[in-house]
């Protein structure tokens, strides 16, 4: 699987919306991280699908170097209650619908990584729709993209192909620089 995000676009700190088939969205996630790592980016993965512990193993199995990845895990605490953050590696948010804590976590991790080439990978808008209305997601993406631009950081939002209605899609389209639909 080849990801058609151009390295020069990443260097320009662009923000992307990447569509994928449901069955291949995890593979796309892995390919994106590999691409980012190869370009010297540190990736902040916001996961709303799999817990950090599982995702870590999945990445390792697929040859992703974890030293260039930090996780924001919105699943583990939601499933099993209390769990401790591991500085620089994973930060837990109590549930995928808590956009305030998620926003704080993103902001703080980006500050911790200041000076590095960072890209945030948001996996995925489609899963977020389980917990949040499209209008709240739109507001949250607007918040995140604004912050990314202020901090001059690149970002990638993953979504299932044909999974966003025209209204949400048109809103998100105005927040991102490129849409990639492989």
């Amino acid at each position: 699987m080849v990801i058609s995000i151009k390295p020069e676009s990443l260097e320009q700190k662009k923000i992307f919306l990447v569509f994928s088939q449901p069955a291949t969205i995890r593979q796309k996630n892995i390919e994106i991280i590999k691409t980012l790592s190869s370009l010297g980016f540190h990736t902040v993965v916001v996961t709303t699908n799999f817990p950090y512990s599982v995702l870590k193993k999945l990445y390792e199995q697929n040859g992703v170097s974890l030293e260039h990845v930090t996780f924001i895990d919105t699943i583990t605490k939601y499933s099993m209650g209390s769990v401790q953050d591991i500085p620089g590696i994973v930060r837990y948010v109590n549930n995928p619908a808590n956009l305030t804590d998620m926003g704080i976590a993103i902001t703080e991790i980006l500050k911790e990584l200041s000076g590095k080439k960072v890209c945030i990978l948001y996996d995925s808008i489609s899963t977020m729709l389980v917990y949040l209305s499209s209008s709240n997601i739109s507001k949250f993406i607007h918040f995140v993209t604004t912050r990314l631009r202020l901090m001059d950081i690149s970002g990638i939002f993953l979504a299932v192909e044909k999974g966003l209605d025209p209204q949400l899609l048109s809103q998100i389209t105005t927040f991102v620089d490129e849409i990639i639909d492989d």
Partner: protein
Amino acid sequence: MMNGKNETGTEGCIDEAIFDNAHIMMVVMDKNGTISMWNRAAETMTGYGKAEVIGSAEIWKNVYPDPGYRHEVTHRIKEILAKRDYFENFETSIITKAGDTRVIAWNTREMKEGGNVRIVSVGVDITKQHEAERKVRDMNSFNEGIIENAHILISVLDQKGNVLIWNRAAEDITGYSRNDVVGKNTVWKSMYPDPAYRKEITKKITSIISSQMYFENLETTIVTKIGEQRIIAWNTREIGNGIWQHEIAIGRDITDQRKAERALVSYISEIAMRLKNPVEILRDNLAELARMTRNGTLTFDEIAVTLDGQVRSTAQVAANVAEFQKAVAEKNEEIPEAYRKFLSG
């Protein structure tokens, strides 16, 4: 020609046969209303025979039984005859012997013969004509009432687009009063202030009219006097009689309908987004989990945490479905009660 009174009451120079067989009521009387001649048509119209009326003025009390009305008629006749010796088409309502009301148009002339003054009155029964006119008036009034009270915008335009009729709904929907628009064609510019949109609409209307002379459900967005946007579905027809030609434009305000439709589409779309795609992702998550479990990659705790996450997501999807069902039941009153309870449950 006959001179002097005879048995039918004709006298002087009036031809008896013409007088008696005329299809219009003919009466000769003196200044006090005492009847000297009363033809057959007068008998037919009033129901009173010659024998009952000749030599007396009592007939007027019979045909005008209401003293007030009788006084009014008498006063008006005297008033006219004081100025000239005739009147034409003076309409009164008489009551016949059978009690029916008939409308008579009187043409009367004073005739002087020697020292005698005779009044010759010719009465035409215009009851049917009067009734027809009343019906036309009623129908016009009824039509005006319908136009005025219709809950749809109705406007009639001349060929230059000048507004001739602008009903109450038109005032309510657009905010422009009759005084603002009638006799002018400027309201269209006010309602379509964007020149590009106005041009587009004009082009569309011109194109439709040139091919079929009318249009149906043409939707345009107008701007009201207070600056609100309203969506109007227009239907037009040409009306005319060969001499004049007007355009009747009927506009239905479908703003709320469109708003509701958009809301419904948006709602259904939102639900589709929040059900179908997440379920596909959950399915693939579980498939991935099964694969990793078989490979022995995951610990017992990792499997449990992952499954818990998927269970919670599934529970949230179920909650979203329930919320959707409840909203559908609440929004659609036409859904039978039993089904509404089921959907809300």
